[in-house]
């Protein structure tokens, strides 16, 4: 089946996205006095009922929506999978531009949320009482939904990083589980030498992985203050990352396989891709997509950039936000709160989601959950630890969606040609600086 990437749509969104406050883009005109929405108002809305349209691709929400309808019989939750990440953002941007068909609730990943917050195309949830939930979420996700005094979504899940490794392969070649990235490179060499078909991991350039590893290395490439942004990929943290990853690229220790492709699933299954540094939401995908390797895999803490450190990072994860043009806001907020802070959280954990709520991350039951897929390992302990150790001073660009879309044209070159990774990052920086300037941001290098 042909897959056209509708490139021409990409412009639509951001053309007007940054004409700040311009009504033409469906931004709210001026700052209307923020009214507090009391819990009583929300209760009334639930009693009166109505329809809430939710755009989300998160599979665990199906059960949550069904439970919610059961609890509030007058409410009808219309759950629509309008596409995954970029596809949904395009659709959302189109709907916002056309001012028609905007959903009441939309799933927006953390890296993309600030773009919507900045253009006021999502509702500030603080007046609804979301600001009181500050203490209940782990630091990474909470930091991602906040902007100034506003709260622009409620964290749905999180992806504290861990290293998933194929124990069977490691045991067969007598390789120790790496605890630092240097050891990781060593392990990569040893493995590839022992079995030329096997690689430590696959990577052909992935914006999510790179930004996550920079985050863990203590790099701060993006500094954001309203419409003033700084972009700089030359700090000490970034150097640590490029030096280490350059070795893996130069020595051809990375499998040239695109993430999430069928080849990738195949490699995870037959041991040719031996580790996976990725977010804690991965176990569900392992269980459904890599059935043949059940029992072979284990989770381990993410390798560190220096001996004895203990830094985590977040990879992926989404919030549920209320688009400004949505209707029925009190009702929509009631659903979001139920799903991401109320009873819905438990339902979603049961179905394999990884929570962003500290209460659940720290609960006995959660920490002691045994994963049959990982040979009975209590993997959540490792994930929760990683979530706790994630620094909160990381920010994404207010146009990260665009930035990630040009990652493969810039940094991606380092994987296929002789361009050093550091130069690739430099090219990415140049491209994002140029774009930001064009869009009316004040960009400092």
């Amino acid at each position, binding site marked *: 089946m042909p897959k056209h990437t509708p490139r021409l749509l990409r412009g639509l969104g951001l053309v007007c996205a940054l004409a700040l406050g311009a009504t033409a883009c469906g931004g709210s005109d001026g700052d209307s006095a923020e009214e507090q929405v009391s819990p009583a108002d929300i209760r009334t809305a639930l009693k009166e009922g109505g329809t809430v349209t939710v755009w989300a691709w998160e599979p665990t929400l199906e059960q949550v929506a069904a439970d919610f309808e059961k609890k509030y019989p007058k409410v009808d939750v219309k759950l629509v999978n309008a596409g*995954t990440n970029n596809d949904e953002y395009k659709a959302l941007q*189109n709907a916002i531009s056309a001012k028609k068909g905007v959903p009441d609730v939309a799933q927006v990943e953390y890296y993309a949320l600030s773009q919507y917050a900045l253009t006021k195309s999502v509702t500030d949830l603080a007046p609804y009482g979301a600001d009181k939930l500050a203490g209940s979420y782990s630091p990474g996700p909470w930091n991602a939904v906040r902007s100034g005094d506003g709260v622009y979504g409620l964290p749905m899940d999180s992806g504290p990083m861990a290293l998933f490794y194929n124990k069977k392969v490691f045991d067969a070649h007598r390789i120790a589980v790496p605890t630092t990235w240097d050891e990781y490179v060593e392990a990569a060499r040893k493995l590839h030498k022992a079995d030329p078909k096997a690689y430590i991991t696959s990577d052909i350039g992935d914006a999510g992985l790179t930004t996550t590893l920079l985050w863990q290395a203590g790099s701060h490439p993006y500094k954001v203050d309203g419409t003033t942004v700084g972009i700089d990929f030359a700090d000490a943290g970034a150097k640590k990352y490029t030096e280490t990853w350059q070795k893996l690229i130069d020595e051809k220790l990375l499998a040239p396989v695109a993430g999430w492709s069928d080849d990738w699933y195949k490699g995870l*299954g037959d041991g040719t891709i031996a580790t996976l540094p990725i977010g804690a939401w991965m176990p569900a995908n392992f269980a459904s997509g890599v059935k043949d390797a059940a029992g072979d895999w284990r989770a381990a803490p993410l390798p560190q950039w220096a001996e004895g450190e203990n830094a985590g990072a977040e990879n992926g994860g989404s919030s549920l936000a209320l688009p400004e043009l949505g209707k029925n806001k009190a009702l929509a907020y009631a659903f979001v709160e139920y799903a991401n802070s109320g009873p819905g959280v438990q339902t979603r954990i049961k179905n394999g989601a990884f929570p962003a709520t500290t209460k659940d991350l720290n609960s006995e039951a959660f920490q002691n959950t045994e994963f049959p897929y990982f040979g009975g390992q209590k993997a959540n302990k490792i994930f929760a630890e990683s979530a706790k150790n994630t620094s909160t001073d990381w920010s994404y660009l207010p146009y990260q969606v665009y930035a990630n879309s040009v990652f493969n044209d810039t940094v991606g070159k380092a994987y296929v040609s002789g361009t050093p990774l550091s130069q690739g990052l430099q090219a990415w920086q140049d491209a994002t600086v140029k774009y930001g300037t064009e869009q009316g941001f004040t960009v400092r290098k």
Partner: protein
Amino acid sequence: MSSTTASRPAVPKAGGPGSAPRLRPTRGRRTPGRPRRSVLLTLVTGVVLLYSLVPLLWLVISATKTQAGLARSFGLWFDGDFALWENISRTFTYHDGVFVRWLLNTLLYVVAGAGGATFLAVLGGYALAKFDFPGKRAVFAVVIGAVAVPGTALAVPTFLMFSKMGLTDTPWAVIIPSLISPFGLYLMWVFATEAIPTELMEAARIDGASELRTFFQVALPLLAPGTVTVLLFTMVATWNNYFLPLIMLKDPDWYPLTLGLDSWNKQAATAGGEAVFNLVLTGSLLTVVPLIAAFLLLQKYWQSGLSAGSVKE
């Protein structure tokens, strides 16, 4: 694909301004006796045949594998587990049988969209070929221009227009744009010029048939081969349409098969999503079967030259 050519020698007529372009009948240079064989030509055709059949073969073989089997076996040979029937039944039942709904949606879009487009093309082509009216040249220019504009370029303006009318996320958003087929109109125009002898229409009129009756009872049967050609074109285009429904529809209940299968395919790349490559492949196989069937069934109507011998020249 070759467009149909009239085997009847064209009636020499003064090509007045704005008369439709003619297809010149091709004269195959057949040497009498046995046709010549060419090793090179046979080889080239064989390669092309392989090139088109191998992907289909791969699809058929892959549809018999389980999700795990896809990962562990060679692409062009069977895995130990033969799971075709199980895959088919799971495809139809997965997510509460949404596949059936998508299939019916696709049929609706094809019947209404492609059927309507063909009907309009036949009407318009006949009128343009057989009637003279002021502004015919302008119409010709517009049609030729429209053929040159790719549908993709029109998708965004169409979306904005439809959302203003409040038609997005309804089946109309897919059906209405599918009704317009400039290429189909052009084809019918050319075909009608060749296939309907003006003398035949004059004869019908002298016998007292109304214009409508002349069209339905005299012209339409003669236009059958061209109609089928246009129907096949529009059918394939509507059946495989991806981009238009992609931007028009957000409600999975109205998805055609292309979008539906794509959404299943993308599940594998979603945190917490279930990888169902086996169902995507089986679904794709089930999706191409009706198209192949349509081609085989409509094959016999492709012969041109139905009007041969209807008039004495």
